[in-house]
């Protein structure tokens, strides 16, 4: 069997020293965020993960994007108050930093919050037209993806809101973001996607990523269809702190192989790990890597 790569979905927990940030303010010096990115990256590398992310340590993933897009402001939720437009790189500088500290034998995932998720996570005070807003988000994200592709090995689009509702223009939205992108692309949709499997299999991306560990019924849902996409198999839960033993993960991956055969190209946690304690997140990654090694060598 060809060795399947281990990866992450996106976010990773870090312990931010708020007082250190305040001391930067009191001393009127700029505090760098790089130490928190490095902390996340070091854990992923030390756990043995092949495709590493920047850990999305700065903010919840929606805010990372809306904080830097024109037309958005952050209150309790993001508010859209003007036309959404790209205002310059959002994640690229962090990715460049990660590339600089990443061992040569590891690869880098660039992360993009999906346009539909940004739309549904925001309070629209300007458009009054969800589709128009979603496509403006998509066009802005496209510009980020165009720059990002030069610095990463894979671009992953995170669209959890697809699991609640797949809009009839969902494919077109993703197409807007990925069209012309030369690196590999992945679409991550967590939650129960059992009712939208055909739409997912039709998406213009190379890899589909879902939370198979928390929702093993997804295996049955995918079994009903011809698998035309590569799969990133969610194999450890991100929503609870129990660290799955290696053998349990191995058994889970075997179930995945029964359904997807050689279409599994990545093993990952079910979702971002931001809400887990740091030591738990690290141990889950380590066990994921060990399980992958046990199966694939």
């Amino acid at each position, binding site marked *: 069997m060809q060795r399947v790569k281990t990866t992450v979905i996106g976010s990773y927990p870090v312990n*931010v020293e*708020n*007082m250190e*940030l*305040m*001391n*930067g*303010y*009191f001393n*009127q*010096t*700029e*505090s760098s965020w790089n130490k928190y990115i490095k902390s996340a990256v070091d854990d992923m590398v030390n756990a043995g993960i092949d495709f590493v992310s920047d850990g999305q340590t*700065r*903010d*919840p993933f929606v*805010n990372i994007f809306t*904080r830097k897009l024109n037309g958005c*402001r*952050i*209150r*309790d939720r993001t508010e859209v108050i003007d036309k959404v437009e790209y205002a310059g790189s959002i994640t690229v500088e962090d990715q460049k930093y990660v590339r600089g500290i990443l061992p040569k034998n590891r690869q880098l995932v660039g992360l993009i919050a999906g346009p539909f998720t940004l739309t549904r996570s925001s309070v629209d005070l300007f458009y009054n037209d969800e589709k128009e807003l979603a496509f403006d988000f998509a066009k802005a994200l496209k510009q980020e993806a165009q720059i990002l592709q030069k610095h990463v090995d894979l671009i992953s689009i995170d669209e959890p809101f697809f699991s609640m509702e797949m809009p009839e223009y969902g494919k077109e939205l993703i197409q807007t973001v990925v069209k012309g992108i030369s690196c590999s692309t992945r679409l991550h949709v967590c939650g129960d996607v059992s009712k939208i499997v055909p739409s997912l299999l039709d998406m213009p991306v190379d890899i589909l990523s879902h939370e198979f560990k928390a929702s093993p019924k997804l295996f049955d849902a995918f079994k009903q269809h011809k698998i035309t996409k590569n799969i990133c198999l969610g194999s450890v839960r991100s929503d609870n702190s129990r660290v799955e033993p290696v053998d349990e993960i191995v058994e889970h991956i075997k179930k995945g192989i029964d359904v997807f055969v050689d279409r599994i190209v990545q093993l990952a946690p079910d979702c971002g790990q931001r809400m887990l304690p740091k030591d738990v997140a690290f141990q889950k990654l380590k066990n994921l890597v060990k399980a992958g090694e046990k199966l694939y060598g």
Partner: protein
Amino acid sequence: MFSFTKEQEVLDISGIKIGGQPGLYPTVLFGGLFFKGEPDFDDGKKQIQNMFYLSKKTGNPAIPDFFVRTEEYVEDIVNFIEKNVPSSRPFSIDIIDPSLKIKILEHLGKKNLLSRTIYNSIHVGIKDEERKALQKYTPEMAIIVAFNPKDKSPDGKIEVLQNGANLTDVGLLEIAKNVGIKKILVDTAAMAPGDNSGASIAAIPVIKEEFGLPVGCAIHNVVEKSKWLDGFEVARKSVDASSNVNIPLFGGDFAIYGPMINSDLVFPVIAWQDILVSEYTENYFGISPVDSHPRRKFF
């Protein structure tokens, strides 16, 4: 000059009124003492007397802001406050080190001074120990520093007040209320020159319109840190003092103007600005200044 559509809170801080629509109350001035850490109590006493004299002359309320840098002087400074700040007046304590903040709260509590204390400050660096100390020894008033390391714009400052910008469990306003602070002042967190320093001024009307609370800042910090001004040594103090006029001009309620030794420069500058603001806001918005306002002393 303008007025706000949001109803503005006017706080009574040990007899000093702060907040409200521009032109109603004079700008409250916080002058700092013992910034270097080792207090000169004799000099401090003279400076406080001078500041109160200027306050009486101009009409701008004065609040001494005491820096405490080391544990060694905690007790002495609290004793100094007790003896030298009249019992009818408020004062603020300005401390960075969280463990020192906890110690001084205890001392202020023991001396029954908490009802006159303005706690400077609550910010995203607050930890559980400090929250517990504040719950046990609760000052009547606190300044919240709206510094958001993720976004230094006015929007970022609102974010950190409202929800903590994912750095604290809840917003800074809620943290202050949860520990029992009754009267809240917002400091818009002046940044270093070139680091969005103008946002601290722009944020004044934005935050007042959003929350209706008294707002101000230490805009002089921007001047103090300016290396560019090294080439204009004669002008430095004037620039420092005059930077404070931005605060009443943008609708603000208080200025933390730096060392109290600068009082002679700052008080007349701010009083003059208050007069100009009041003239316009009365003519245009019909806001008559209170009897203690500098404009009443001018005519």
